[in-house]
């Protein structure tokens, strides 16, 4: 030990204390019961550790003790704001395992329902994203429109959020007589509101300032982390399962894949991810219009439903383009009426994993915006 009388203070070496802030699970902007452990240097985020599991409901274990049909309501509860899109890969996986070919009308109704639910999901995503940036009014405009979509679901299926509508081999019931007109009215309403939202939120100067060049996710990082859906397309990669490996009847429709181009900032920033969702709503509208036109009026939606769902021994991984990304189900069948194993590949879970990577170095206010741009649902992450 040496004694020093005169101390030269090297100011660059003085380290100030970093603050550990616990964001959530009860916080207005964590979109559910997500807990983020945030390390702050002043207001600059130096590290983020997401803690999940507050909504864990043992989906995968329960599924092993249920019939194949009985799993469907649990699938609904994974991503509870786009349940139709959750049911689709599950029932299609089981159908493929059993070699069932569903009637044309069922395919069309499934696609229309899934696309309507995609619009509803993106409405919530954009609404809450605006809310995270402090804009309250677009939130209510979008929620008002989503309500109209939920009315259609309610009329057709009896449920507003959790439908149990797609069954293995068919549908729970046929759609009601005025279904087509209702859907076309919704498409009109969605386009009308989207024009308002475009002015009020998307191209608002303050909103652009808040979201452009924030949380930039480069394409290579997005691929390395396995991001999918608008997260991946926001980074400029036109990968959409509906186009890449068309399932159901998606190959019959003419639609585009919107990608982030860095119009107001860098490619892969929060604004890009948001605009991808915004434009996908328009593409979904186009798909719905075409599907309504092509949809056969007659047909029994329950004709292909098997008496007993007992797939032969085997395994399958089937994936679909969920509004949040690639939702896949890996099902192992041992020949009994209960699945041996069901594994869900949840897009929110994978997309959330990139959060620490893209939020370091931004301000705390940006972290909330970045989290909002990922569009997570905790029901799916924790399952």
């Amino acid at each position, binding site marked *: 030990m040496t004694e020093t009388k005169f101390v030269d203070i090297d100011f660059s070496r003085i380290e100030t204390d970093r603050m550990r802030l616990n964001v959530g699970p009860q916080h207005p*902007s964590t979109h559910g019961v997500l807990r983020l452990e945030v390390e702050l240097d002043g207001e600059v985020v130096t590290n983020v550790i997401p803690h999940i599991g507050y909504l864990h409901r043992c989906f995968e274990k329960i599924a092993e003790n249920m019939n194949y049909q009985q799993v469907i309501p649990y699938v609904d509860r994974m991503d509870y704001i786009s349940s139709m899109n959750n049911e689709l890969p599950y029932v299609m996986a089981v159908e493929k395992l059993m070699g069932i070919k569903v009637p044309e009308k069922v395919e069309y109704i499934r696609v229309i329902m899934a696309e309507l639910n995609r619009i509803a999901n993106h409405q919530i995503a954009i609404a809450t994203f605006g809310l995270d*940036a*402090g804009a309250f009014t677009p939130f209510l*405009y979008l929620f008002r429109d989503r309500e109209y979509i939920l009315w259609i679901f309610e009329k057709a299926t009896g449920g507003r959020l959790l439908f149990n509508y797609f069954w293995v081999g068919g549908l729970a019931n046929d759609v009601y007589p005025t279904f087509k007109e209702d859907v076309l009215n919704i498409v009109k309403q969605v386009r009308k509101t989207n024009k308002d939202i475009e002015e009020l939120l998307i191209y608002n100067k*303050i909103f652009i300032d*808040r979201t452009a060049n924030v949380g930039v996710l480069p394409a290579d990082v997005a691929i390395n982390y396995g991001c999918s859906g608008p997260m991946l397309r926001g980074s400029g990669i036109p990968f959409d399962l509906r186009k890449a490996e068309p399932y159901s009847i998606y190959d019959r429709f003419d639609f585009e894949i919107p990608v982030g181009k860095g119009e107001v900032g860098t490619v892969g920033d929060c604004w890009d991810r948001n605009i991808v969702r915004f434009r996908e709503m328009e593409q979904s509208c186009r798909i719905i219009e075409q599907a309504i036109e092509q949809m056969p009026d007659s047909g029994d939606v329950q004709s292909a439903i098997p008496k007993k769902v007992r797939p032969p021994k085997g395994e399958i991984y089937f994936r679909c383009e969920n509004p949040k990304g690639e939702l896949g189900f890996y099902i192992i069948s041992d020949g009994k009426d209960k699945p041996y194993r069901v594994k869900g590949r949840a897009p929110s879970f994978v997309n959330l994993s990139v959060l620490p990577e893209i939020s370091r170095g931004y301000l705390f*206010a940006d972290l909330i915006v970045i989290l909002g741009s990922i569009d997570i649902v905790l029901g799916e992450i924790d399952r």
Partner: protein
Amino acid sequence: METFNVFERLLGENILSAAISVLLPLVFLIIYALIAILGELKISAWIQERLGPMRTGPYGILQPLAEVIKLIQKEDIVPAGANKLLFNLAPYVIFAGSFAGFAVIPFTAAFVPAEINIGLFYIFAIGAFAVIGIVMGGWASNNKYSLLGAMRSASQMISYEIPGALVILSAAVLANSLDMQKITLLQAGGFWNWFLFGGPGSWSKIWIVPFTILLSIIYLIASLAETNRTPFDIPEGESELVAGYHTEYSGMKFAMFFFAEYSNMFIVAAILTVVFLGGWTSPFGDFMSGFWWGVFWFIFKAMFIVFVQIWLRWTLPRVRVDQLMYLGWKVLLPFALVCFMMISLYRIIY
């Protein structure tokens, strides 16, 4: 000295007239706050195509009263580890800061609670008081969100106060006075005499009109930051900081913060009214002018500015803390400086 205060003239300069002069603004403030809360609820509902509160009284007009009763009934919680003295004091410091501003507001030709010839300076100085309360409350809460909110507030204050002060300074140069009553009287005779349109004077004033209009816009922006409202509600940004510096407050203490916010909204609206919109003078010269018309015009103009604040709040997203700094220092300040120099030049020439 001739007094403007009607009560002093009637009752003489005694304790009674002083008490009336103090209580009248307080009564006004309470009534105004109730109306403004209802206005906020109903205007936001109108903007968002909702109905707003409808159950309490006809069309929900008793909703603010119900809210006040609810807040009074709530348990008053002091979090463990909080600095009790500062925690309890902070809401009242904030409220005192904004209520003290009412002392120099000229409600009409014959009523100013306190006449001081540096009213404009006083109101600006006392308005900065609120930040002390916010920092006190934020620090004493022993909550990290509150602390962040308080720190943001302190930095926000520096950014908006300077352009705001330059605007006030320009107005003082134009009026040659800091007395709010004198500034108002200068603008009497019609809306073309308002400082918004260059103030009284010959046609030569035409070339400062762009600058005075710009100044009023700068002050409107700065005042939004002063009242902590969207797009500058950074210290209490709900989606980030839960409720910012008043996260830990409940019951009446929370109500005091709320009350102070609405009081502040009126204060800045009053400054804007007095400095740029002719205060209590009628926009049509002698038409519709008089004691009560003065009260009407003043409150009408101020409430219009309050309406604009509410309107903006429900339309715009929130800016980020560094963007507010940018706006304050790199946009508002240079513009205010240029306007100030042009107006000084005008005063020198004419």
